């Protein structure tokens, strides 16, 4: 594993077939390490997104290599690129179609703030229509920056009271 998970400790000689842990830890552990992205590739950031899935950067080390082009099967929307006002409602509908729990990464200057497109045609930040968990700076960001954002998002998910949210 890339990051040692200190939430779970198991010694079969002592505990046999029984694992004791907090339910939140188990749920979050599962969610954290199989965070399938919904690639919302709208501009040049999508090229960096693609290369982060390639062999050199290998996003599958973090369990997020399964780019689902179906919102039903994805957990994390990566908005990679310029969102025009014409595209914005479609982006919001795809977000609405994603099953809970779901997260959003705004990748790059355009998705985060509109970037250099101060224009009548460009949405000035995707956080105006969907809740964003992690913003990535850069134009476009390096694949390492996206991996860093993914790790930050995983850390955020690990701290979530998931079981309480499930029963609430």
């Amino acid at each position, binding site marked *: 594993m890339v990051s040692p998970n200190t939430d779970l400790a198991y010694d079969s000689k002592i505990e046999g077939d029984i694992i004791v842990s907090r339910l939140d830890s188990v749920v979050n552990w599962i969610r954290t390490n199989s965070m399938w992205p919904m690639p919302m590739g709208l501009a040049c950031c999508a090229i960096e997104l693609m290369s982060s899935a390639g062999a050199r950067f290998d996003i599958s080390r973090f369990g997020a290599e399964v780019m689902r082009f179906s919102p039903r099967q994805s957990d994390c929307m990566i908005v990679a690129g310029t969102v025009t006002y*014409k595209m*914005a*409602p479609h982006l919001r509908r795809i977000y609405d179609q994603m099953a809970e729990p779901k997260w959003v990464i705004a990748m790059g200057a355009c998705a985060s703030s509109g970037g250099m497109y*101060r*224009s009548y*045609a460009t949405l000035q930040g995707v956080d*105006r229509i969907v809740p964003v968990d992690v913003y990535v700076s850069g134009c476009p960001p390096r694949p390492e920056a996206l991996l860093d954002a993914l790790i930050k998002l995983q850390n955020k998910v690990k701290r979530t009271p998931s079981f309480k949210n499930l029963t609430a």
Partner: protein
Amino acid sequence: MTAIASDADVTASLQAKFPAATLRPSVDHPAVNVPMGEVIAVLQWLRDEQGFDYCVDVTAIDWAEDVSPRFTAVWHAYSTTGHRYVRVAADCTDDENPSVPTATGLWAAADWHERETFDLMGIHFEGHPDLRRILMWDGYPHHPLRKDFPLAGIETELPDIEVAEETQAKVIAAPMAGGPFVASSKGEVNMTDAEPRAKDESWNEQTPKPE
């Protein structure tokens, strides 16, 4: 179709055929101004008689709100056999609701060019088979490349009513001066302070780095 010797021959023979056509100042390709009523006949003559078989561009110029004629439609055609361009321009007679005859009957390629010109300049192409907006969404109330449209844009509703209600988001005017990439020529904004990365630092050119 006849072979053409030079650029001057195109305009000369065009003016011989269409006496109302006048030479248009041009630094590159032969160019003519023609009356709007004759423009389709001129384009058809260029296509059939002069070999300009390829419609490169259909666009328009908005001179200003208070200028008459305000709009000028411009066509560029290319000859794939003669390897030359020609430019034809025609003033719109109506400044309020400019109207131009369509060239889709001559070149199918004119279809999307005319839709774009309609979308961004608000010029109506008479006889166009499918004159819808092509870049902005259907129902957008403005024509963004007109001179009276501010660069920042005008606040309007999002294309999708449901999403607009859900998110309370609008198409907002985004003035360049508020953005992170714009310098002011008058010097009100110090670019070092305006740069987003400078805001993250406790020191810059004005305030030295603390020891």
